[in-house]
């Protein structure tokens, strides 16, 4: 076959270009084009937490992860989340022994002996993200609020540091950040859940005791969980609309 050089290069060139173009198209379609992250629409979500007491082992991973993720001061007076250990003797629900050494940050040292006739278990605590939040009700300026997706957030650039909300929270989940002199508390790792990630405590819980759920998403497993388990909230008599649902909550828990 005779092929003069010009024709060769011409044909080869065209083949090359077409191949390259096709390859690019195939690459884009098969591999999936890098998608634009879907804009987070707050109104589509209504966040809640499940805490499964029957699974909590008091390892303290959640406390450590939260402090690492959210830059919480490491001293023992400041916790966005903490774990309590309950030791309930016999029928005395009103006087349990409770401890939370450094909030559970370093785990729990041995304190009780097995077979002492008492019931011992761990209870993780955090902001309950109340739907009828008393802390939001008392803020004089609107520096704390319930977001459209059900998370109780703090506006750190607006907070006066009057501490009224700290007084009004029945669950003791708020504190004053000594560095900014504004209030701080669990915000469900808002910077993570708005990107499709799990809160740091949920991500790091090894037993699945902590779960986050989206009540507005009909496919979310939280609906099945709430159907199949008897759950309670803390201090139900306060009618705060708490969205932290505890499975296996004992009557002695405060």
């Amino acid at each position, binding site marked *: 076959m005779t092929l003069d050089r010009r024709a060769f290069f011409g044909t080869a060139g065209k083949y090359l270009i077409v191949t390259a173009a096709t390859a690019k198209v195939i690459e884009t379609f098969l591999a999936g084009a890098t998608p634009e992250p879907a804009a987070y629409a707050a109104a589509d979500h209504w966040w809640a937490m499940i805490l499964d007491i029957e699974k909590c082992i008091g390892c303290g991973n959640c406390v450590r992860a939260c402090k690492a993720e959210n830059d919480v001061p490491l*001293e*023992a*007076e*400041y*916790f966005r989340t*903490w774990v*309590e250990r309950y030791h309930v003797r016999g029928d005395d629900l*009103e*006087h*349990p*022994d*409770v*401890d*939370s050494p450094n*909030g559970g940050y370093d785990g729990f040292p041995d304190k009780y002996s097995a077979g002492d006739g008492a019931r011992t278990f761990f209870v993780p*605590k955090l902001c309950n993200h109340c739907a009828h939040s*008393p802390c939001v*009700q*008392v*803020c*004089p*300026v*609107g*520096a704390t609020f319930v977001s459209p997706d059900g998370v109780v957030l703090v506006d750190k650039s*607006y*907070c*006066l*540091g*009057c*501490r*009224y909300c*700290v*007084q*009004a*929270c*029945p*669950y*003791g*989940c*708020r*504190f*004053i950040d*000594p560095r*900014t*002199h*504004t209030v701080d508390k669990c915000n469900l790792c808002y910077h993570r859940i708005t990107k499709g990630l799990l809160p740091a405590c949920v991500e790091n819980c090894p037993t699945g005791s902590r779960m986050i759920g989206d009540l507005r998403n009909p496919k979310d497993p939280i609906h099945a969980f709430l159907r199949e388990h008897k759950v309670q909230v803390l201090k139900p008599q*306060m009618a705060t609309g708490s969205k932290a649902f505890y499975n296996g909550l004992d009557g002695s828990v*405060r």
Partner: protein
Amino acid sequence: MDAPTLLHAVQGYMYPNEVDLQWSILIVLYPFITGLVAGAFILASLERVFNVAAVKPTYRLALLTALAFLLVAPLPLQLHLGHPERSIEMYLTPHTSSAMAMFGFVYLWYLMAVLVLEIWLDYRKDIVLAARESVGWRRTLYRLLALGSDNISPGALAIDDKVGRFVTIIGIPSAFLLHGYVGFIFGSVKANPWWSTPLMPVVFLFSAIVSGIALVMLMYMAIRFLKGRAIDMPCVDTIARYFFYAFLIDFSLEMLDLIHRIYEADESFQSLDFMVHTRLYLSQIVVQIGLGTLVPLAMLALTQLVRLSEAARKTFYAIAGTLTLVGIFAMRWNVVIGGQLFSKSFLGYTSYKMAFATREGLLPAIVLLLLPFGILAVLLFLLPPWPDEEETATSEAA
């Protein structure tokens, strides 16, 4: 707060975030000060609205005392805030569901539309006369205070009197609001059983009236004594009578709250009872109830039942008044600090370690308590409460 860790001071279990107290002695000071303001104003209104003529000698003094303390009232709050520079947000975006949000407006209303206006209307004649008779910077000051007006004709003064009476009438519910909302700030916190009761605003108000009356009575007796002038005994006796009645009501209300708590013995009772018998024993049982309520009540009852000499009555009033003021301060302390000493888990207690020379320590608290007296001294100098007597004194001296 800026104190070192309190963890060692915790007894039992407290939620980790509860160990440090949030509201310090400055927040104890604030209701004490606004209580004095409200009480002093109520005493002043006794003469102006209810025509109890006997207390007229204390009318102007009561108003000036109220003003001096009202000017100091926001200072403990500003010192306490994490960001005092943002406090203007309460005026810009007040959250109407928060009792605290109404502070800015109630304060400003009471200061300008009630107290300052009423003082101005009552003193206007003296201010204009002073403007006419003085020279230099004083003249400028008095002309400024008179808003440049020179009209003290009988017609103008009659209008002043009418308007002043109207302002006082509005001032009474305003005074109730100024201090009552503070009681509501505490009484509406369902999370805290030591605070949460519908009685709180009423108890606050009546203890405020008691403290305000006691203060003005003491100030009147002290100032007259220091100036070497006679004390108007019918005036003081009348004040003491109202003092006694208000105190009886206040005591009954507090006893009602106590009896109710003990009887119902709800989930918080054991924890609170233990707290009162241990950490709050000195401030509540000894100071507030014993020295601050029962002793003054007994002394005042005695003055009402037995005819005592003038000297004896003056002594009794002075002692009773002083003990009352200490007792009412202790009451504010027991409410504010007491409400934070126990855990909301009802399983533990913490301690209040008050620093001395820090932003929220004892030293600024003492300064803020003394400051109103300094301001009052200036006010009494600029606006003498008994000008007719000053004239008689100067003419006698001449």
